[in-house]
């Protein structure tokens, strides 16, 4: 114990757990894209449908992810079926679905803006939607750590179960620091990717405007 305060399996398990964080974020984003796109179109359409979509987006923005997660966990029966097929979601799906209000409202907001840009004749302005979605994806990755609270074995759950066995605060802080480094590198890499994408789109915009 003079060397590493953590077990040999810790890092591989942490990486495997982080894969789960990415899975959750991906599911939440895909569902959010579908739902958010519909809401954005409805909002831009105006009328009663538009007002309803605007209210719905407002409510989704206000819904705390952690509460939504516990709501879904407790409201959906474990033996729920649809046409005889079991539809009770797994822990991963519950976390992903709890992130959908955030991702869908984010997509609806940014999607509506992108559609406005497109209609105003600025396809490159509309393309700013892509880096914004990349940003949302990494926010979702970080937020998916809430799954630790309902027993989903994602990255933070791995860190916590390693730390709980360590008697000293110093040992725990080392394990936490490793977690921050792993998640931090991922997040910063994601944001670097987003900046690259933005620059690339910026160059495209410059070329587009200078073209005859």
């Amino acid at each position, binding site marked *: 114990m003079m060397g590493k305060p953590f077990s040999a399996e810790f890092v591989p398990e942490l990486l495997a757990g982080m894969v789960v964080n990415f899975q959750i974020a991906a599911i939440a984003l895909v569902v959010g894209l579908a739902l958010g796109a519909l809401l954005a179109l409805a909002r831009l359409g105006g009328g009663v449908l538009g007002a309803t979509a605007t209210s719905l987006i407002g409510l989704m923005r206000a819904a705390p992810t952690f509460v939504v997660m516990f709501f879904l966990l407790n409201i959906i029966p474990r033996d729920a079926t649809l046409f005889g097929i079991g539809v009770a979601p797994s822990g991963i799906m519950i976390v992903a679905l709890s992130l959908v209000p955030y991702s869908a409202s984010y997509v609806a907001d940014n999607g509506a803006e992108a559609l406005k840009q497109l209609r105003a004749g600025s396809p490159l302005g509309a393309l700013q939607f892509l880096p914004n979605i990349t940003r949302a994806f990494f926010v979702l990755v970080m937020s998916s750590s809430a799954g630790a609270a309902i027993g989903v074995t994602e990255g933070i759950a791995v860190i916590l179960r390693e730390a709980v*066995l360590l008697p000293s605060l110093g040992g725990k802080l080392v394990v936490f620091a490793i977690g921050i480094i792993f998640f931090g590198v991922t997040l910063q890499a994601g944001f670097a990717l987003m900046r690259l994408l933005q620059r690339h789109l910026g160059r495209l915009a410059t070329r587009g405007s200078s073209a005859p």
Partner: protein
Amino acid sequence: MNRAWRILLFVVMAAFVVQPAVAQTPDAALAKLMEDARAEAAVPGACAAANVDRLVRAFCENRIRPGIREYYPLFGTREGDVRSGYDIDVARALAKRLGVEPAFIRVNAASRIPLLAEDRIDVIVATMGHNTQRDGQVRFIRPHYYQSESTIVGPRALSVKDWPDIAGRTICVTIGNGSNAQIVSYNARLMLFDEAGVLPGQLKDETCTLAAQDDSFFDYYFIEPDFAARFEKKFGFAQVPWGMAVARTASAERLARALDLMSQIFHRDGVFLEIARTNRVSTGFLERQQATWKRPECNTDAGSSNPACVLPALNADLEPTPFVGRVVAFEKWVKASTGIDLSLPMLKTMPAWMLFKDGIVNSLILVVGALAATLLFALVLGAVQSSRSILLRWPARAITITLQSSPVVLTLVIAAAVAHALFPYSSAVAIGAAIMALGLMNGSNAGQAIAEAMHTLRTERGSAQGRGGIPTRELFGRAVSRSATQIVSFLINAAKGTPIASFIGAPELLSALTDITSFASGRATTYSLLLVFYVVVVVIVVWLCGKLQSWLERRRVTA
């Protein structure tokens, strides 16, 4: 002389009359009871009489019908025609002592009392805890034939010895377990599961670090060498005596009395203890009971009614609220009017009502605290990051990047770990740690926005204090106004993030309602109300933040 003899004889006889009756042994009392019942059974036509006494009927039919379980490892299991387990062997021993055959009938937790009431079984020997609620439904046999307790099970490497060690930890439990309320009172966080059967698996795959369930349930798993090598029982609590039971009718009273006496004898003579050892179930309770029933004051025919010898039933009644009647009436009205099965457990019992009220108050404290902390850290970190001194600026940036790189749950856990290292665990410490964590996370981001605004203002104006420009304090004020949108956005984020404080044991509303649903029904209604509560709170915060943003923007225009 003759008169003197008469007086002496009277005195001696009077002495015998006023002397207390010599207590019978339970063996003698049982023998007499069985002899009388056998004699009654032998009377022609007695067995065919209506509502025949159940002890007499047992002799008439030469059988007793014990209701036993078939899928409760170590206590009642069945493989083909072979039944085994502690309860099965106890039922066999009872039948043998009566001199009749056991005719086993399968029961489960839900069916055992109805089957007894319908006279389809004579006696329940089926892992049934004796509590005050069941006392009104069946006649429990005293002394109790076993006792289970809830036990906390966890990895051997984890140092947990008593209640103070579980504060702030997560414990996996089953919904509806009577001991959950006690766990909650020691500031542990609950992770709820529908079935006890999943708990060992959750421990093995480390989803749960600690789990609480009846020790009789875990006994089976501790037979597995792998499980026993990894896990141990940390400590037990909430002892529940198990009782055999017969119907609460006059015709069953003599059978109950016979079983009372047999249970006494079986404890005293170690019959229960031997059966437990054969079936490899815990024997601690039975060893203590053997010592009790060997004591002269207990080893009498009246021992089973002596409060000094028998154990009381577990008091399972929760104190109702003063307004429970109106709550129930409202639930019925909603059901009748809309068909919606509304259940409001948080308003029906005092423990739930107290948890609910405290949860709402703590949630509001958390929201206000998180907003204040976010604003404070935003201003402090914004000011430090705007400093011209690298020694101040870079550490603040490092803190911001670290906080941005840490998932919210991890930041909360770190704050809680540091707080618990400095202070003994309490709800206030957990709430304080959560406020600090939420404030730091959101405040660092808002502070970064302020620093960026400060940078752009300096670039735009090319001025600073001491060079004939705008004083730094005023420039900072303008930077705060310029970053109003970002500040407001992170304030809203802080308010939305407060429920996650339940993860480190802060007793806010989510935590309180999870605790309530662990020992009461109505999960759907409870969590729907929770969602509505938090959405309303966030909507109010959004509205207030909108006012703040307008004020900051007006200030910017004025400047």
